[in-house]
Structure formats: C-alpha cells, structure tokens
C-alpha cells in the first residue's frame, strides 16, 4: 500500500496545487480574504475533486475517449451544483462571500486536470486517495494564504461573520494593511509563500547531497 500513501501525500507537498503547480489561481487569489473563506472554498473544491475523481475512475472504461472531456465536465458540474445548493441551504454567509467562485469550480483546472491526468487512468481507490490528497493540500494552502492576509489586513484570525468574529490577535495600536485584503495583497502574499516554499526545497536538496 506504499503507493496509495504516495498518491495521498504527493498532494500535500510535491504537487501542492496553488504553489507547486501554480494552478487554480483564480479562486486562490480571489476568495482568500479570510482564513475561513479560504477553507470553505478549499473544502468545496475537495468535495468536488473527491467525487469527480471517484466517478471518472469508475466510468473510465465506459466513457469513449472522444467524448471524455465532455463527460468529465458533466460529472464535475453536477457535483459543483450539489455543493452550491447545500452551501446555500446550510452555510448561507459563506455562500454569499464565495458567490460566483462556487460555480466557477467547474472550470477549476485542478479538478479537470486530476480527472484527465489521474482518475481516467487509475482505479477508484487510488483516485480517491489522489483527490483527497490534492484537495486537502489545496484547502490547507488556501487557509494559510487567507489567514496571512486576514492577519495583516484586518488583524484578526478565524473571522466568520459579525456573530462569530474569531480572535483579534494584533495589538491595539496595530494599523491594518488594508491593501492585503485587495487583489494586489493576494499576489504579494502568494509570492512570498512561493518564495518560502522554494527556499525550503532548496535547503532540503542541499542537505540531501547537493542535487
């Protein structure tokens, strides 16, 4: 089962979606104004990713190659609509914040990418592990990115809504960098995180024999 573990863990570091693959940047940059928003987006994507991987993998011998992309999109779109309806019914505030980015999960290239590159060539168990790993990696990335922006841009952590404001962690005289919550702040935070990850990889590579 070593390879099953490998399929799961690769999504957490070696092919971590927004940082390693630099894919799926639209939701990554747009909705990560708070940690919770990022996590909500990540979990919604994970749900779609797991089930689209599972169903694409189950149907991979049944779907003719000529119409595979159309079939994948129908499968993905169905799960996206399910996520949208459930979120609207039970997490209305999150639904309002994420808004248009929920239906846009359909065209998130991470999901179609995993369906095409992995699930259509592997068995359902492997595909589930792959979807779960990539999804969790995506969720953690968005949560970390969102938390950094929230911390610097609003001085708080884990803000959900006016009734659940999370924690105000910065000192009282801290003046928030409001631009961190705007689109340029997203690029800057993403760039700094990417730089850190590359630095860590470089140090690891040097330790491992200067490759």
């Amino acid at each position: 089962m070593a390879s099953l573990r490998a399929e799961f863990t690769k999504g957490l570091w070696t092919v971590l979606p927004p940082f390693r693959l630099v894919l799926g940047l639209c939701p990554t940059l747009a909705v990560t104004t708070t940690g919770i928003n990022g996590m909500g987006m990540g979990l919604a994507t994970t749900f779609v990713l797991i089930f689209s991987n599972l169903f694409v993998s189950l149907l991979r011998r049944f779907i003719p190659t000529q119409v595979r992309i159309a079939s994948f999109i129908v499968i993905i779109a169905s799960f996206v609509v399910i996520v949208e309806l459930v979120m609207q019914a039970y997490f209305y505030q999150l639904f309002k914040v994420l808004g248009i980015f929920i239906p846009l999960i359909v065209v998130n290239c991470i999901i179609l990418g995993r369906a095409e590159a992995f699930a259509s060539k592997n068995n359902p168990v492997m595909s589930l592990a792959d979807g779960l790993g990539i999804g969790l990696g995506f969720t953690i990335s968005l949560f970390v990115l969102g938390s950094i922006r929230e911390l610097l841009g609003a001085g708080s952590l884990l803000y959900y809504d006016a009734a659940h404001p999370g924690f105000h962690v910065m000192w009282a005289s801290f003046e928030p960098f409001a631009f961190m919550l705007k689109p340029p702040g997203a690029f800057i935070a993403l760039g700094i995180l990417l730089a850190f990850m590359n630095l860590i990889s470089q140090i690891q590579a040097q330790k491992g024999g200067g490759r």
Partner: protein
Amino acid sequence: MRDIIRMIAVLTLIGAASGLVLSLIYGLTKAPIEYQTIKFVKEPAVKKVLTGYDNDPILDRTTISVGTDERGKPIELVVFPAKKNGETFAVAIEGTGKGYHGTIGVMVGVNKKGEITDIGITSHSETPGIGSRVTEEAFTARFKGKPVTGEIQVDGISGATYSSKGAMSAVNEALGYVNTFKQELF
C-alpha cells in the same frame, strides 16, 4: 457508426443520471434555501421595524395574492406578522420603488392603529455615500408614526433626491397593499 451511437448513448446516460440526482438534491434543499434567503436578507429589516413580539415572524410568514402580472401569474406578497399572545398587532410587508440605480426594497412595519412603526431598507444599489444615505436612521426615522392612509411625503435627503423619492414610493406601494388588504392582514 457504432462509435457514434455509443458516444451519444454514454453522454445521454451521464446527462440523465446527473439531471436526476440534481433534481433530487434541489428538492431536498429548496425549503432550507428559501428560509436562509429570507432570514439573511429580510430578517434584519423585519427585526428593525417590528418590536415587542413573542413569535417568529419569519416562520409565521403568510402570503397573500395581490393581483396578477402580465402573464397572468399571481403576484404574491409576503407578510411577516408580529404576534403577542397569539394575536397579530403589527405586520411588516415589503414595497419596492425605483431609485437612482435600480430598485429600492423597503420593509414597512404597520401596527393595528394604522401607523407606521418603522421602515428598513432591504435592498438597494444606490451610489455609496450619497444615495445609500437612505438606509441611515436619520432618514428612515422620518417615517415613524405617520398614518397609513394617503400618500406619505417626508423631507428627502439633499443631494439624494432620486433615492429619497424611490424609498418614499416603495413605502407608498407597501401602504397601498396595507390599505387594500387590511382585512386579510390583521
């Protein structure tokens, strides 16, 4: 030829299965979504205009038919009743008016005596900082205690004439419903 038939069959099957599942999920989530929408969009305004009730106006909401649109479909008006000891003493209904940009929705609270208890703006797309001042207490308080008979006129906000008039026409539309359907409301 066999390939084409197979492609069509597979896509049709997948599409049909997807449609079936989605219609099931839609049926399951329809009621909660309606409740959430009302709760988050209308409840703040309903809570503002009604006070002293011991029921849940959102759960006790009723609809009355106020006429038909050009296609013959009935137009429904949602009524939020405020009750004390089971007796309705005030209702909140929503009217709409044309502002400077788009429609302004105003929730109007009316008590049994025939006075406006308060108004609250539910939706608008007026210019932030100018027309959006109609949502402020300084403006909405001008409607408090006005009698529901006849057209309501209050002082507009200087610099936001269109928005003020839009809010006023929304209030007057709601009052029109109150006067026409008084028997059914209380």
